[in-house]
């Protein structure tokens, strides 16, 4: 495991998608490589940041009403197969 390998799979490592052996190799590389360890930590924290800042945004109440009204009108018509 070299630094370039870590660069390439850092996101998939964070997703928990790398095999056990590879995961072990990354973990031991990170212990000895400050640069890579920082890189993984930055990506991990950026991901939290992105999820928090771009995450829900509740739908307006009027949208729920509109959807329910839409269902009602579909029920009322013969539009359903």
């Amino acid at each position, binding site marked *: 495991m070299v630094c370039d390998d870590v660069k390439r799979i850092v996101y998939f490592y964070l997703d928990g*998608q*790398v095999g056990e052996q590879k995961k072990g190799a990354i973990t031991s590389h990170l212990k000895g490589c400050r640069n890579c360890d920082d890189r993984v930590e*930055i990506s991990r924290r*950026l991901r939290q940041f992105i999820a928090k800042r771009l995450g829900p945004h509740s*739908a307006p109440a009027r949208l729920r009403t509109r959807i329910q009204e839409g269902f009602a009108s579909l*029920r009322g018509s013969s539009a359903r197969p």
Partner: protein
Amino acid sequence: MKSAEAFEQEQAWDFEKAAMPYVDSLYNTAYRMTRNSEDAEDLVQETYLKAYKYYDKFEEGTNFKAWLFKIMKNTFINNYRKKKLTPHKIDFSEIEESYERVIQKNAPDLIKDPESEIFQDMMDEDVKRALDSLPHDYKMVVLLADIEGFSYKEIAEILDCPVGTVMSRLYRGRKMLERTLLEYAKKYGYIRSGEPVKMRSRKDEAKPRKKSAAGTEETDIVEPADEEVELFAAETEEFDFELEDEEPEEEFQLE
């Protein structure tokens, strides 16, 4: 025996009970896709009505939320993206280079305070702008994976593409988004110490922007792109990330 009407009523009620909890998720993603609340509401409304009509096509045991997202994606393509857009050239190696420059220069400053949010002073508007700077296909995978928490396999199903393509887009989309956030952070002073990194300017892509309050130098921040992506030279949509241990036959570990 139930009447057909009673059966239909019951099915409708089942549908509403199953589907309505996803309205916030669908709306958030729709809002990020269309970039405005009116279009997002219309898109979600249409998605629900289609899903309601075709509920009998939903396969029991598969992911219902993913099914709704797939309908929304198709509706979006039909309504908003009929025109074939000019491919937008992305020099991904340039993105990786500029990412590396920031990481190498500023890594310790970026994570020196483990307790606080990484860029806690960054305005939501800038985070939104960074997301909007991604080509649509990349934005979609980032939203589906990192906001909605879908698996690679579910995303592949929603977007009708191979898992390898999802991974490739995720790699590039996340890298581009991180790169842009790091650039903003540097530009607007959220990375507090360390010397500012002098950026090479690329005249062909640099667009005029208002000067920031701090009066910092212009950098080649990518503006919102709505074009489809055409990757440079030999870059293909799929490449092998070698995530697996040395076990043949299995491409990726998905479960």
